């Protein structure tokens, strides 16, 4: 019994102690993985002396945590991937609008919240990758056309549970309406060679092995895989060049409504959008910088220029729930 009491007391003391260690210069809750964000925080600390404290986790769970913490939250900045997640965080009221000329200058308007509650920090193009030995680029045209009969048993997709696909479908709904989109998604499902994959990388490897011929993936997964194994017979195709443009998503951030260190958070955000940080931010994961002044990594640049979809990325959030229901109805697992 004594032991039990001692242990309980110790646990409480440890809890109190760890809570009192909260004071930091900026506190970040990040859904972007540690290895894709820590080098930047380290650079920022080295440059300004401001310490950045962070935890990483799933976007939805971090969001729920900030909501539950309410006025007492220790989060100053919320970093997450996917515009839908950013849109939703803003809708939930956990992000405060920021007025910053620097951010307005550095980040194009379609990659920002119309009400300035969040900004994109890197662009992720979701495009088509094909097997060079089995497909000639002339056969390809648009995302929608992947539902044509000629792709029967040749298409590979990642699961519809991944937010990137939800945003892709959401953008098609915003563009073409629900009924039309449902037809397109159904035609994709009919063309699948095997059940959807849990990761872009696995889908790409399957294209390389010949399980299917084309896949829809984010470009950085393609970059990573080729870095590891340059011999793979894969190439990138930029779809929808004559129509809506390549589907663009962002990873981004917003300052929390109850931030204790609001000024510092805005400063960090501005720094992340600056040319100093943008190159590094994007190249860590072979993404595209949001700042038009900054060139992408040479490997990324080699994939060529393309027309991106100019739709405001906040639309993905608006139509995300619709997109999920539609994919469920279409039998897209």
């Amino acid at each position: 019994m004594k032991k039990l009491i001692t242990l309980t007391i110790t646990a409480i003391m440890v809890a109190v102690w760890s809570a009192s260690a909260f004071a930091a210069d900026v506190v970040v809750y990040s859904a972007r993985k540690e290895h894709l964000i820590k080098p930047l925080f380290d650079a920022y600390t080295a440059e300004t002396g401001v310490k950045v404290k962070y935890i990483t986790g799933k976007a939805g769970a971090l969001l729920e945590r900030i909501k539950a913490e309410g006025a007492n939250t220790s989060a100053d900045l919320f970093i997450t991937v996917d515009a839908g997640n950013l849109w939703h965080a803003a809708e939930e009221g956990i992000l405060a609008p920021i007025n910053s000329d620097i951010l307005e200058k550095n980040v194009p308007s379609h990659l920002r919240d119309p009400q300035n509650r969040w900004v994109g920090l890197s662009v992720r193009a979701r495009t088509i990758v094909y097997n060079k030995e089995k497909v000639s680029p002339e056969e390809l045209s648009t995302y929608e056309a992947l539902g044509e009969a000629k792709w029967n048993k040749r298409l590979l997709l990642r699961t519809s549970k991944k937010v990137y696909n939800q945003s892709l479908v959401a953008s098609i709904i915003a563009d073409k309406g629900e009924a039309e989109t449902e037809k397109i998604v159904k035609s994709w499902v009919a063309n699948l060679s095997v059940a959807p994959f849990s990761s872009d990388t696995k889908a790409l490897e399957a294209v390389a092995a010949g399980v299917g011929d084309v896949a829809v993936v984010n470009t950085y997964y393609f970059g990573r895989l080729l870095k590891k194994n340059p011999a793979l017979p894969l190439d990138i195709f930029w779809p929808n060049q004559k129509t809506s443009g390549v589907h663009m998503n962002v990873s981004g951030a917003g300052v929390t409504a109850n931030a204790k260190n609001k000024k510092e958070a805005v400063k960090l955000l501005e720094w992340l959008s600056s040319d100093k940080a943008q190159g590094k931010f994007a190249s860590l994961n072979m993404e595209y910088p949001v700042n038009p002044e900054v060139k992408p990594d040479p490997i990324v640049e080699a994939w060529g220029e393309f027309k991106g979809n100019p739709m405001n990325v906040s639309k993905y959030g608006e139509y995300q729930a619709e997109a999920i229901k539609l994919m469920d109805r279409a039998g897209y697992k």
Partner: protein
Amino acid sequence: MSLKNSRNSVGIRPPAFRRNIFRLKSPAWFAIAGALAAASATPLLVIMSYLFSPQQEIWSHLTENVLGGLIFNTAVLLACILPLTAIAGVGLGWLTGACDFPGRKFFSWALVLPFAIPPYVFAFVYLGIFDFTGPVQSLIRNIFPSAEFIDIRNGFGVSTILSLAFYPYVYLMSRSAFMTQGRTALEAARTLGHSPAKAFFKVALPMARPFIAAGLVLVCMETLADFGAVSIFNYDTFTTAIYKAWFGMFSLASAAQLSSVLGIIVLVALVTEQKMRSRMRFTEAGRPNNTERLKLSGPWKWVAFSSCALMFFLAFALPCFKLIMWGLESIDSDLSRYLEYGLNTFLLGLVGATLTIAAALALAFVKRNDAGPLMNWATRLATLGYALPGTVLAVGIFIPAAWLDNTVVGGLKELGFNATPFIQGSLGLMIAAYCIRFLAAGFGSVDSAIQRITPSIGEAARTLGATGTALLGRIYIPMLRKGLLTGAILVLVDIMKEMPITLMMRPFGWDTLAVKIYEYTSEGEWELAATPAVALILVGLIPVLLLTKQMDK
């Protein structure tokens, strides 16, 4: 007789009289049990309270398009995993616990080792080996260029892999049951002319039933709560649907509704399991005697050897080999970090397991002393957290904790104090969450062990004047040592493997190996995840080896 039917024993020892003998004097015990049950049930109730904010539109979408498939998929998993783990766990437990054959000593501890490997690691390793581009299919295509691609991402594939991860629960429990079973009963069966097989099915197996059942209940709950492995296989279950409703449709209410359905399924399972064995009372008869093992002869000893060897290969050697190969491929220059993560992982497990077992013991002790319907429901509620997906449970804990914090801080501020919240984001809250999640894992083995202490021991101690804490400290705990230790180590390793709660609730700077594995696997970088996975297995091996050492004493 080692197995008593309480209906038959009514005449000898009337229930009212028996309960009287056992009644604890101090109501403090009941207060403790009540508080524990209430604390554990809180997150569940928070989640269930969302039932009252219905999201009609999303809910009707889910029932129309999704629910049927989910129930089917989840049923397939349970229908495959429960028999697979039962056969493997009980069979191997019997072989290493009660029989003698070449290699028995090695296998008796080696077969526990897979317990150190988390199910999500099993999933990505096995997919890495057997999927389209893995070495096995590549080899097949090299030999037969026209060979078809084989997709292992289906219910049977997932079930097989999860069974490799979960069989140790049944193995550990049944092995310790077979080992501590009195030899006398078995010998009596043999002298009555039963063959070894018949003695096993008629005597040893029924005697081990509470242990096997406890192991299977854990397997069932682990299966229902698993998120990592099924999502790597893109196999839809309740858990994946809960995540989708929440993170995709941003409807915590729908997620909570799905969780409640899951909770109800588990309650039904628990009640059924308890009904099934409620008519029996299990007591230990005779002294455990390890020297008289059943000698397997001729071909049987080789059958035993090869089944053990096959399981060891599939559930431990092969995945470890693959992880090490991947780890070497992508070796990190900064390995020292893993020391810190490993230490965090171990410390959290140790503190969490100690507290959880203390709670489980208190609960089981009180339940033993008054097995009324109220206590039964309290323990069921208290152990339900195990079946809920970790993230859902975490939210159920976080919401009331944050509320409490904000109320206290707000109150103190009104009084003029400058207070900071001290519960949310604290280590204490995370450890409490572990306790709530894994209470079932500890409770199962503690409770089964308590059930085997004969009432007469308690009665004797009582007539000698030992009551309450003295009864617990001087009689029960020493007799329960094995059960307690098994429970503690189950919980310890479970906490170290745990991912969603750690992700959601850890304070700054408390990253664990599981967190690192999540960060890499969620990006599809399985090779990079191999290094923290190997580290996690190494850390997990320490308690697992301790466990097997203790069990053989």
